[in-house]
């Protein structure tokens, strides 16, 4: 009777993963129940001007420390159809690897001009753009000397499309030992931003990070 889906793997050297990963295989959702598993988030986000520019606290304020970077990309479903008007929430550490989050007790340096939290919407073609400071790597587990490589967290929510992911940086020395990278295997390349030059703009460089939402992150299409 029961049909099973994936066995979720436990991230190596990750305490939380060990404590919170279901030990049983996931159960396959019967066809009759599938529609109800795709939450449709209403549009209640009031985004203020400047929220996509994380390099400053607000327009006209001084720039934060570190390398300003621009991140652009396109969000589509597995069939290449753009996910439009989708809310992207972004959070990343400052250049020293410190979050402004009240529960970050690392003691690393704070930058009074960097909040590290941003939001933006995709346009009609699924494109997005935000500006931030290239984050620093941080020592996530001092007890075993395990670092988290540089990364930018992104949550995508629009209609029923739902994905939480992270963009990584090519060549970071801590990439190979990262537990989530190890779980991703060769598919890790999908989560690396592709660097490009920004010659006439006030950035260190740009990164292109296209996102495909698929698998068990179902997407509602309003146009079908």
């Amino acid at each position, binding site marked *: *009777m*029961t*049909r099973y*889906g*994936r066995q*979720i793997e436990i*991230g190596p050297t*990750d305490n*939380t*993963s*060990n*404590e*919170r*990963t*279901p*030990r*049983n295989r*996931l*159960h*396959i*959702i*019967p066809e*009759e*129940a*599938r*529609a*109800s*598993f795709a*939450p*449709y*988030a*209403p549009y*209640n*986000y*009031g985004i203020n001007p400047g929220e996509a520019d994380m390099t400053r606290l607000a327009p006209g304020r001084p720039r934060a420390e570190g390398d300003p970077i621009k991140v652009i990309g396109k969000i589509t*479903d*597995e*069939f*290449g159809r753009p996910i439009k008007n989708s809310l992207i*929430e972004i*959070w990343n550490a400052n250049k020293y690897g410190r*979050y402004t*989050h009240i*529960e970050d007790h690392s003691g690393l340096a704070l930058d009074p001009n960097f909040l*590290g*939290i941003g939001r933006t919407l995709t346009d009609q073609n699924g494109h997005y753009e935000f500006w931030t400071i290239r984050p620093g790597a941080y020592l996530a587990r001092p007890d075993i000397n395990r670092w988290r490589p540089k990364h930018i*967290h992104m949550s995508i929510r629009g209609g029923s499309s*739902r994905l*939480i*992911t992270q963009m990584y940086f090519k060549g970071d020395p801590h990439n190979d030992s990262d537990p989530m990278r190890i779980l991703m295997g060769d598919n890790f390349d*999908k*989560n690396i931003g592709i660097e490009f030059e920004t010659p006439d703009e006030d950035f260190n460089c740009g990164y292109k990070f296209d996102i*495909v939402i*698929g*698998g*068990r*992150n*179902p997407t509602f299409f*309003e146009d*079908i």
Partner: protein
Amino acid sequence: MTHSNAKINRLTPTNEDTLGPYYPISLCDNDSMDMTEIRRGIILEPRGEKIVIEGCIKDINGNLANGCLLEFWQANADGVYRTPLTETHPKLDPWFNGYARHRTKDGNFSLKTIRPGVNTDLDHPRAPNITLTIFSDGIMRVVTQLFFDGDPANENDPLLLSIDKNLRERLLMKPAGETDNGLKIYKIDIIMAGDNETPFFDDLLS
């Protein structure tokens, strides 16, 4: 609305990743754990019986799972979900979205909502239930559905019937008294891993 029969030219999905421990708390400022109030300060309300769900998320050691991002999704008092496809449905409730989001600091949650109904127009009516998505540090999205203990529709629910009998029990919210103003309270513990682990569900596409 599902695409399970289309198999051509699929793009490789971007990897999910964990929520991490530092999801910005302020991003939830506009979120509410009161589904009965679609906008603050108005007198119009959704149809149906107002109830309160109290629950918690526990890890393999029985400790509360702090810092999780929870998303709740449910049908209205007539069993109709609000989606782009149901905007003109005659049984849509204009005063009910059925969506709530919450970042739980300590692992507990409390949701005020209405008891969802059964959509008898469907070939396979679902028992009243609430979809719960959990994002957490250390793990990608997991999802399940919570049911009301003793509801007669549970006997025929396709999701409950698809799992072993002893597991169904773990998805049942139990009556637990009333609030000061007379709303029924239902309680449930979500066990992420280990003994009495909550059944979690997977999509056919993965």
